């Protein structure tokens, strides 16, 4: 049971990094990024490929983040000229391009089979109890660092301008500032962060496959952000935790409802999570952490 809780805590910590990145992009800036998982996938595969070829772990993290940031840059140039809804579709398309490219590029990525045998982090610690604990500690520290950086950004002159962009982009332009510069930077920071989350994920799970980077992941992160409270940094953390509790909690449904068949149960789990989200948006649209406003 402890091992199970520890595993959940590690997943929460990994996905919180993604939620924090999305919150910067959508919550604080209003960028409808539906392609989050693409950057996550870039990080996961960069780490998987490099470390299974004998490169150090750090190289995987760095290469993943760098690639994701570089991939975000042209989106900044091209896609940011699109209106909100088209931008959302373009980013969704991009993440699918990443996935299909991974499936097709068999030599490097092994296609649909995926890459197994990715070394665990801190594997020098032979102990099965201390290794995950140390990983969790590192993840918590990373999240804390990211939260501090996000707060610094949100309360800064930069944060003021991205908040202004979220509220009215035309007016920002009318005042002599180029929204595209700010949006590109926000996109790049979020992309790098998503890639780091992907690297952690690859090392923790130990293998990567294209199935892990479907748009479903993106939308789960969206759910986490909305549950926590869009635009609230603390909400990103709590929302991810709540979502994971819902998803994992639904695992115990079979014990409560033994008369439901196991195939129906799989669908019921998705239903429970969806129902929770609907109830949340109806009765608490501002999310756990309150006001849709800012900070």
């Amino acid at each position, binding site marked *: 049971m402890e091992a199970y809780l520890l595993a959940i805590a590690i997943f929460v910590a990994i996905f919180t990094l993604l939620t924090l990145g999305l919150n910067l992009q959508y919550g604080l800036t209003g960028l409808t990024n539906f392609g989050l998982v693409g950057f996550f996938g870039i990080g996961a595969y960069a780490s998987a490929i490099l470390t299974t070829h004998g490169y150090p772990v750090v190289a995987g993290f760095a290469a993943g983040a760098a690639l994701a940031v570089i991939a975000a840059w042209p989106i900044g140039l091209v896609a940011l000229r699109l209106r909100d809804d088209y931008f959302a579709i373009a980013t969704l398309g991009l993440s699918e391009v990443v996935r299909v490219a991974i499936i097709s590029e068999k030599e490097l990525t092994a296609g649909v089979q995926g890459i197994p045998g990715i070394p665990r982090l801190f594997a020098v610690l032979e102990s099965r109890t201390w290794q995950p604990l140390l990983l969790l500690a590192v993840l918590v520290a990373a999240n804390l660092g990211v939260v501090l*950086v996000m707060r*610094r*950004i949100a309360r*800064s*002159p*930069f944060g*003021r*301008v991205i*908040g*202004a962009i*979220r*509220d*009215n982009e*035309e*007016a*920002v*332009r*009318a*005042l*002599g*500032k*180029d929204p595209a510069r*700010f949006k590109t*930077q926000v996109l790049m*920071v979020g992309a790098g962060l998503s890639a780091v989350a992907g690297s952690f994920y690859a090392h923790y799970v130990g293998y990567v496959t294209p199935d892990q980077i479907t748009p479903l992941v993106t939308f789960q992160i969206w759910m986490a952000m909305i549950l926590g409270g869009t635009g609230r940094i603390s909400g990103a953390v709590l929302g991810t935790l709540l979502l994971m509790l819902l998803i994992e909690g639904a695992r115990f449904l079979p014990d409560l409802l033994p008369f439901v068949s196991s195939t129906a149960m799989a669908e019921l789990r998705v239903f429970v999570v969806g129902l929770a989200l609907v109830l949340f948006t109806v009765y608490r649209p501002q999310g756990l952490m309150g006001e849709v*406003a*800012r900070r």
Partner: protein
Amino acid sequence: MSLEISRLVKAYGPIRVTDDVSFTVPAGGLVGLIGPNGAGKSTLFSLVTGFLAPDSGSVSLDGRSLDRTGPAERARRGLVRTFQVPREFSHLTVRDNLMAAAPGQAGETLGALFLLPGRVRREEEALRRRVEEMMAFLKLDRVAEVPAGNLSGGQKKLVELGRALMTGARTILLDEPFAGVNPVLIEEISARVRELNARGIGFLVIEHDLAALSRLVTTLHVLDRGRLIAGGPPAAVLADPAVRDAYLGGAS
């Protein structure tokens, strides 16, 4: 800083919403623009500030052409507009609305934010003092901490004016600054515009409240169905039969 508008044309299909319009807002001028609904006044503002591209014609500021520049660049050169329907940053406080408009803040780049925190802090303190003065000047100091989305229509108009001033604009285009504003506040806004004009800031003002506008401006231009039909001192323009015709429903 004089703004020259020269032979601007903008058509949507067969309809010329701006039809060969030319006039000048002299440096430090106070010029009004009137016309019935649909005459093309707001379109003209968008053409002048670069939000729309004209089919032909040009706009220049102090003799320098603006034709190849976008709205942000025009604003940086000192030409700033407000909007007919206020576009306040609704979730930002009034103070933050004004602070967000100030140009050249180091803290607006991520690099400086994390590498030069001392400089960012000093700039913020200086900017905050300037914004306090601006809010006092516009009598917005009592709502400094209120999200701008919660303000009255008239206060939003003042926030937009304040933002334009914070950019350091030398020519400001006001789109219906009195619309939906109570009479007391109209006089208040007029008084501020006069004071700013006395300090050398030029204004071009679209307004339907002809009485208040003619008290404010020294020159009035009239736009009807895309064309300028009159221009000159307000009293003379308002007495012009062609202008009265245009306003009485344009039965011609």
